[in-house]
């Protein structure tokens, strides 16, 4: 343990420098996203409004005209190839609203700033990931031994998920601003309140299950977080759309922001997919934790506060998935459940560590 202590402390301080640098670059990215939104506000796109208020006689009429209108051509490439077209018909009752153009709102300068923001995010993410790696090397173990390490890894993974979605050509740049804002908060909290000098682990954490259980827990949290951002935006966009559909006139700011977001149904679907995709992994995380608990504490389930809250989180997300398939619960109600579920996750992450003492208390916090 004492061997090469000097280099280890060196690495730890390098890690700290990298984390601070990452915060600086994230801040720049944050301003670039702001700029994107600001420049984007010059554009006067009103697709949602157009789709929902085209026919003053009401929603039903609007739907009838809109229903068969989405036509997908499967032609591609250079030559004009004509395969049969697939006509997609929206389900009855659903608003047929096109997705917004994104934060830049079609504005060229806005788009430029958006691209700059994404590039800066990539840079900051790389620096942060290097910081996490240096931390791991300095302690020669997985960097998940205390809440500081947990936090920096968490935000790295959350941004990583966002960048991966972008790399997969998913239209998720709208996530940028809310995500980076909270990543900055998360890192600020980590370096001030939660900071713990790099150190070895207590014996209870000496297990390969640390790699399995904690890494999946962090990953699930990051993905749930991305899903929760989508859910919140869905709730805003949905009320915006229903206001329009019922003939109301939202304020200028709301119009400017909301028109640039994807349609409520797209946001809803996005967060559903994200949450549903990671739910089995969350199940696995809990079970892996139970197996580890069986090895470390002599019982695989003992209603320790952390266990209890993972269970509550699990039940809440299960409730969300069921609500999505239940008439009368779809839409906003299900979205609220998703937010409650994420709140449970957050409480499990911060609240249980700080306010409740249990078997998951290690190394300070």
């Amino acid at each position, binding site marked *: 343990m004492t061997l090469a202590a000097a280099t280890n402390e060196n690495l730890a301080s390098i890690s700290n420098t990298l984390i601070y640098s990452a915060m600086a670059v994230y801040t720049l990215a944050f301003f670039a996203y702001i700029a994107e939104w600001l420049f984007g506000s010059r554009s006067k796109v009103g697709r949602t409004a157009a789709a929902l208020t085209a026919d003053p006689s009401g929603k039903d009429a609007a739907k009838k005209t809109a229903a068969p209108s989405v036509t997908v051509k499967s032609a591609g490439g250079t030559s004009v190839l004509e395969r049969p077209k697939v006509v*997609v018909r929206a389900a009855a*009752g659903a608003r047929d609203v096109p997705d917004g153009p994104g934060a830049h709102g079609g504005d060229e300068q806005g788009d430029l700033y958006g691209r700059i923001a994404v590039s800066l995010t990539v840079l900051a993410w790389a620096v942060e990931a290097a910081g996490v790696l240096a931390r791991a090397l300095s302690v020669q173990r997985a960097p998940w031994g205390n809440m500081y390490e947990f936090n920096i890894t968490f935000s790295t993974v959350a941004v990583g998920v966002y960048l991966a979605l972008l790399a997969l050509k998913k239209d998720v740049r709208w996530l940028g601003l809310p995500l980076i804002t909270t990543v900055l908060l998360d890192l600020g909290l980590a370096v001030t309140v939660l900071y713990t000098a790099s150190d*070895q682990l207590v014996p209870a954490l*000496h297990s390969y299950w640390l790699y399995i259980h904690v890494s999946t827990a962090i990953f699930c949290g990051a993905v749930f977080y991305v899903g929760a951002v989508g859910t919140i935006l869905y709730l805003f966009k949905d009320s915006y759309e229903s206001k329009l559909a019922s003939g109301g006139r939202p304020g200028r700011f709301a119009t400017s922001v909301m028109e640039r977001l994807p349609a409520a149904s797209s946001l809803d679907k996005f967060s559903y997919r994200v949450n549903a995709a990671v739910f089995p992994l969350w199940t696995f995380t809990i079970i892996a934790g139970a197996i580890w608990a069986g090895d470390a504490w002599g019982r695989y389930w003992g209603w320790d506060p952390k266990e209890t809250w993972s269970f509550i989180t699990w039940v809440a997300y299960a409730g969300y998935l069921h609500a999505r398939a*239940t008439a009368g619960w779809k839409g906003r109600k299900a979205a609220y459940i998703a937010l409650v579920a994420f709140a449970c996750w957050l409480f499990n992450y911060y609240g249980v560590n700080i306010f*409740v003492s249990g078997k998951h208390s290690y*190394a300070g916090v």
Partner: protein
Amino acid sequence: MTTTDSGKRDDSELDVVGSRLSTAPQEDTLNVPQLGVIGWARWFWRQLTSMRVALLLLFMLSLAAIPGSLIPQSGQDETRVADFMKRHDTLGPVYEKLGLFHVYSSVWFSAIYILLFVSLIGCIVPRTWQFVGQLRGRPPGAPKRLTRMPAYATWRTDATPEQVREVALKALKRRRFRAHVAGDAVAAEKGYLRETGNLAFHLALIVMLIAFAWGQLYKSEGNKLIVEGDGFSNVLPQYDDFKSGNLFSADDLNPFSFDLKNFRGTYETTGPNKGTPRIFEASVDYAVGADGKAKTTRIEVNKPLEIDDSKVYLVSHGYAPVITVKDGRGKVVFEDAVPLLPLDANVTSTGAIKVMDGYRDGKGKWDQLGIQAFFLPTYGGKDSAVVSQFPALLNPRLNLTPYHGDLRVNAGLPQSVYQLDKSKLKAFRDDKGAQVRENLEIGESMTLPNGAGTVTFDGVKEWAGFQVTQQPGSGWALAGAIAAILGLAGSLFIQRRRVWVRAVAGPDGVTVVEMAGLGRSESAKVPQELGDLAGVIHDEAPTAPDPDPDVDPDPDPDPDSEPPVVTAEGAEK
């Protein structure tokens, strides 16, 4: 989201063909039933097994689990419960009545999860039968108006309807659809694993619950403190304390024994986490069965020793000073390692040495000796507080306060080995009348006044606390858990969908091909897949020349072209 009347009408056909795409229960509105017991029972059952009530129960379950994480639980920490009771005079008894100190075995918590599981079973069983019926049947035939489906494609071709159907059937079967020709159309369906996974997941939950309950009934859990050099064999009287489930019997204990050879603990020596444990390991020799061969192994914090379905965990450790007591005649009456209980993270320890038999005082009279012991593995010197400064044995110091008289061990009351009952004991006093107490280093002795003998601190051994648990059913719980994850993945990642391909000769003799796809909601891939399928069929049955100038017949569509992802809400109810 509200559905207008016309929307409902539009959907009625979707309902018919989509009805069996999932076996999800139909949501009834809250109809007040006809009078009569059976009517009410049926109504109650239908409510209980409805998704809405299941949701409600899920909610209640998570809400009900919360207090257990905030209020001390007797199952985890008895002392904190007692402490809570002491501090809250009014709240304590109320909590006690409500079962808030044992939430997870309380009546109301049990009621919720039992109702939830009854609801689950009531939901799963009919769904399973329905699904078996679907598997034995064939995909339903094409609806009249395919244009009403969420994804739709059509073209005209010179191929005959029979040819088109044959091509479609082949293409669908190659893509592993269950497909058959029904009337003028091919009906196909795929993704049955979704429902299988769904049912498997819920079934696995039931298996896990039963395994957990089984484990609770038959489990046993005992603790044993062993000093280095001593041994243990797994029979009931050997345990220091023992808890078991209601249906456990002592015969269920696995026969084995082990000796603790050596315990090793290392601690962080520098930095802010100084004193934090780093390594705990116990070297043991163990033997399985009554006269099995001894094997050597190491038990660590995360690595219990597993023998049959028993697991031996290393749960605690401490120090046991080796003490020799000579009586008034100079005869050795006590020579043993005395385990002391740690009081803090730096293993400041306390305990008692009890010399019950064979002791005579300075005058040769029979007596009993009780010595209160206080031990610091690392004494910080005169200026520091009288607590250990570090958990390892850096500068051990043993503080002894001797008493003599009646230890009351024969009074019939259970007595802690770590505490003296001082009611019939007298302190030793020196010439000035002050109570005798002394700090000893290893190797030092203290002499008792009036020739009452000597007490020598010979050395320190370490002791380790072991927990031996038997929890039957954990294998089943694990199997259930794995099945649950697999089922969940199947039910969330696999899309169940139907495709119909209708080919009929139009009035002008040209065949009209119509294709439609229907999936459950959230399906982005249904139109995409339908596009791909249409491409494949279109290769074999290309678009016929059409008077419409827009349509450009092309017998060789680009196979790489990917239609943009378009979402479609299915007829999911």
